[in-house]
């Protein structure tokens, strides 16, 4: 296969539609007779529901129906557990999945209590005021440490505690390692991730055709096939009777997967009852509580090292804020647990976590999915150890990197894909060296920093390393079909939220079939167009669906060559497939177009031979045996105002290895976006809850997403260690940018303000000018 497009910075097929306002997003779906839903959500985090009186709301003109949990009858039930706990010995897991509407108890602010259906969203919101809810307010569980104390309230009364899960994983023998250590260092770390806050919120439109007995659901989900399967099951329909369409989705980042959100579960049920289509669009205020979060962990972590700074072992005990329900199992804390090992040789590891129920919104993966927390701990431990041992922070990392001949590298503990954590390939030291070179590490430390410091400017540098497990199974599939006009149609089961699938997948097809990228149209996210699949999450789209597309394209290529060789009566090796035709090598005037081959493949007479199929199409699946491991290094130079403690990023470098790259333009975009979210997480975004579980800053005026003035220009470079786990050698890249930014910024601010001299350590994320000020003051008082 000649690679013309694979690896090239091809501009995107999908852009024109988006740039001219013609792309269909969920709220663009208009149907005759469309009704609108508004959800009454609890303002209170924890309560027993005494009664909900909707009678006044029903009287309001324009209101068609109002539903509470009791109205759902048998349809009301806790949702499925989406991800079982991995098979870890001794695991404790208390399954408590969420419900479509609160019944008997409310367990977090934002939990839906009732649904109003009206002729317009405006009218539906008016009617929300007419609903009277009688609640017995209960103490809210908000703090993960207090949640485990005796006498505290229980989020799930029947459980007798707030323990959602308890997991202990080990590798080697930490106690032995610590006994031999020259230095052991222990600290408490707090890492809070935030909310995904895509610019488009969620939405669902459901349409029931009673005569055809067919349900169509438009949904901003990242996993349309799962939603289709679950809805069909819940509604008592065959899977073929339900079509789920994920249209253009304005950013996913993780939380647009939850099967099923209350709105996804209830709107189709309502559509069947009212026999009118119904739409719900989440407003921004709702989004803060109604879409899942990723929040905080508290780690008590310890590292044992020898005199040269080689890691002998790490021990960590952490608490994870799970939120009120745990439908997503343990993906986030397991990722934290596993990713803490990083790119380093850590012979002994002892990690325990307790996932804690709180009266707050459910926690599910958000770009990074818990990896941030683990990376923060190990990177900060290494910085602290470097300082204690008098070793340069970049050198301590270098000493401990897994060497290039150690792959596949076994980390033994169980990962989110249920298999022992294994890094398939990687070569870490050159990535570190390149990052140091690009940031100008030597020159900065030896020349620029001293010079600027002499001028009274506070500038500092940070380096952080990480690995990222990507591209996990179970599988994805793709159907590639050449059409009679010579263009190619592709369908796959995942959805798209901006990652450029319409282009990157087309590049794969274009190379295999010798067509133009613009002659390949991709359909994603429509369960009628492709039946099977999992979804976009865990940085797996390119790896898994991309490889499925490749397999299907390969199969089609073989068919085309076979058909052509039959037609020309020559050997397949003598043929070349390019520019939309198959021709004999060296005799370009002897060619058959792909379109013609399609017609030949579906003859009006003759026979389609046994063992073959009509048409020039193929459906193939790809399921990787395990996830593949990408890695990277970020480096930053910052300046901090010594009076206001505000931070400005002067230079930002990313060197990244995600194996073979399909489209470097798209890849760079993913990294830029990830870093921007990482910077937001590190220094700007913070969910502020009060002790009653109320979110105090539920607006974009007070939940601070970074703008073009906060995000710097980034310089990128790439290394490539192809993955041996898939034919294309691809590793995932979607989350990478977001993962190491927390420890990077903490390290750089510490350096800029020379905090080590004041014995002030930045052991928490998010930071802010005010928080840095407070930590320095606390240090001064000590």
């Amino acid at each position: 296969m000649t690679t013309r497009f694979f690896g090239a910075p091809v501009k995107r097929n999908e852009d024109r539609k988006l740039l001219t306002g013609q792309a269909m997003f969920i709220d663009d779906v208009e149907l005759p007779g469309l009704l609108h839903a508004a959800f009454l959500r609890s303002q209170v985090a924890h309560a027993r529901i005494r009664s909900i009186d909707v009678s006044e709301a029903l009287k309001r003109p324009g209101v068609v129906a109002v539903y509470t949990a009791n109205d759902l009858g048998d349809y009301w039930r806790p949702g499925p557990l989406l991800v079982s706990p991995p098979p870890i010995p001794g695991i404790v897991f208390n399954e408590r999945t969420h419900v479509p509407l609160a019944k008997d108890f409310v367990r977090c602010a934002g939990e839906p209590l009732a649904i109003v259906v009206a002729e317009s969203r405006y009218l539906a919101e008016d009617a929300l005021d007419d609903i009277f809810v009688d609640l017995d307010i209960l103490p809210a569980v908000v703090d993960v440490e207090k949640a485990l104390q005796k006498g505290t309230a229980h989020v799930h009364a029947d459980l007798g505690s707030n323990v959602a899960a308890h997991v202990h994983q080990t590798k080697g023998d930490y106690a032995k390692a610590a006994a031999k250590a020259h230095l052991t260092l222990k600290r408490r770390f707090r890492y809070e991730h935030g909310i995904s806050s895509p610019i488009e919120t969620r939405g669902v439109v459901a349409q029931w055709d009673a005569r055809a007995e067919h349900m169509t659901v438009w949904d901003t989900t990242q996993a349309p096939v799962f939603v289709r399967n679950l809805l069909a099951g819940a509604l008592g329909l065959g899977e073929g009777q339900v079509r789920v369409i994920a249209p253009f989705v304005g950013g996913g980042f993780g939380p647009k997967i939850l099967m099923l959100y209350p709105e996804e579960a209830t709107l189709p049920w309502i559509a069947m009852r009212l026999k009118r289509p119904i739409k719900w669009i989440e407003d921004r205020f709702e989004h803060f509580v109604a879409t899942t979060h990723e929040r905080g962990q508290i780690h008590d972590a310890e590292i044992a090292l020898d005199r040269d700074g080689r890691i002998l072992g790490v021990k960590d005990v952490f608490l994870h804020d799970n939120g009120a329900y745990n439908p997503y199992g343990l993906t986030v804390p397991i990722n934290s647990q596993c990713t803490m090992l990083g790119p380093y040789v850590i012979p002994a590891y002892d990690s325990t976590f307790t996932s804690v129920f709180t009266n707050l919104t459910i926690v599910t993966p958000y770009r990074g999915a818990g990896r941030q927390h683990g990376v923060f701990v190990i990177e900060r431990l290494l910085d602290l150890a470097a300082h204690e041992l008098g070793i340069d922070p970049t050198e301590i990392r270098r000493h401990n990197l897994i060497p290039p001949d150690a792959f596949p590298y076994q980390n033994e503990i169980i990962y989110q894909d249920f298999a022992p954590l294994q890094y398939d390939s990687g070569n870490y030291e050159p990535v570190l060296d390149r990052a140091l070179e690009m940031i100008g590490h030597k020159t900065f430390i030896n020349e620029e920093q001293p010079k600027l410091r002499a001028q009274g400017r506070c500038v500092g540098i940070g380096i952080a390393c990480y690995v990222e497990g990507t591209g996990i199974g179970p599988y994805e599939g793709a159907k590639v079909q050449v059409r009679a006009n010579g263009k190619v149609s592709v369908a796959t089961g995942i959805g798209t939220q901006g990652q450029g699938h319409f282009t990157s997948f087309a590049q794969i097809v274009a190379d295999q079939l010798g067509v133009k990228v613009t002659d390949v149209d991709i359909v994603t996210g429509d369960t009628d167009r492709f039946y099977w699949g999992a979804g976009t999450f865990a940085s797996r789209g390119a790896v898994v669906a991309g490889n499925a597309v490749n397999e299907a394209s390969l199969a089609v290529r073989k068919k085309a060559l076979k058909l052509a060789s039959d037609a020309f009566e020559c050997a397949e090796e003598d043929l070349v497939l390019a520019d939309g035709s198959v021709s004999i090598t060296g005799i370009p005037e002897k060619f058959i177009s792909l379109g013609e081959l399609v017609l030949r493949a579906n003859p009006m007479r003759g026979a389609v031979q046994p063992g073959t199929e009509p048409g020039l199409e193929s459906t193939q699946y790809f399921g990787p045996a395990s996830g593949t491991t990408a890695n990277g290094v970020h480096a930053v130079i910052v300046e901090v105002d010594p009076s206001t403690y505000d931070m400005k990023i002067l230079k930002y470098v990313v060197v990244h290895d995600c194996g073979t790259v399909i489209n470097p333009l798209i890849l760079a975009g993913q990294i830029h976006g990830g870093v921007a979210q990482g910077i937001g997480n590190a220094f700007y975004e913070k969910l502020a809850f009060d002790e009653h579980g109320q979110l105090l800053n539920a607006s974009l005026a007070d939940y601070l997403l970074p703008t073009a003035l906060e995000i710097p220009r980034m310089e990128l470079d790439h290394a490539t260690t192809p993955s041996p786990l898939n034919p294309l050698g691809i590793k995932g890249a979607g989350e990478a940018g977001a993962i190491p930014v927390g420890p990077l910024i903490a390290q750089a601010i510490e350096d800029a303000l020379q905090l080590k001299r004041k014995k002030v350590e930045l052991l928490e994320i998010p930071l802010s000018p005010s928080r840095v000020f407070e930590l320095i003051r606390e240090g001064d008082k000590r």
Partner: protein
Amino acid sequence: MKPAPFRYVRASSLDHALSLKAEYGDEARFLAGGQSLIPSMNFRLARPSVLIDINGLSELASIGRSERQVRLGALTRYAALERDGDFLSACPLFADALPHIAHPQIRNRGTIGGNLSHADPASELPAVSLALKARMKLRSVRGERELEASDFFVGLLTTDLQDDEMLAEIAIPLPSGPTGGCFMEVARRQGDFALAGVAAIVSLDAEGSCTDVRLTCCGVGDTPVDVSATAVSLIGTRCSAHAIDAVRAEVQRTISPAGNVHASADYQRHVAGVLAARALRTAYERARNGN
């Protein structure tokens, strides 16, 4: 986030607007730029029964200049102020403050009258108008009255506007001798509400000695806070760094910020002092250099 229903009337004249306001009292709100009102209506925090749209009253949008004062019609949009070079030269505090107000899209609609009537204590222009000793002209069917800025801002999001009154005009006295003004703020992102902001005006005599200082803060109280008294020690001096630093400390001792989700009270206190020093230094330099 759709607003609750309301009756909408487009005012055909100022008298029409005022008589409607007199009729409906606090049930009615004036719709000018709407950049504070409409978000609060979309959140359903504000639910006026009547909106009186005054955007057509072009006589209320004006920038007038005389020897002694600048008169701004309340309906003057921030963007119009930003485009008026003469105005910005005459009122450098506005030149400093305007770019901090949200973003250009907001400034294309928002008005100074709306901003001052809304009286958000973290907003820049209330502190600026307090520093300038601006006079507010309030109108109603009952007539007209004028208020000093210090009497206009009475509490959190509260002014002395009576239920039937409209802020119609803001009069800004112009300084006589050499004067320099400077506004600075600290916010998390450009355009956000200030965590603390300071407006400083330093007046000098012909010899360059300080004759008067105006110093106000935003973001550190329920209203803009006048801390001019802390700078009395600068009068008669040449505003040395040491003297200014003493004022900084006095400002920090005087104010009582409450803290918020973005900053602790102590951080606000600290930064207000830092800004006071920086703003006074710059105001003094500008006065020395003839602005």
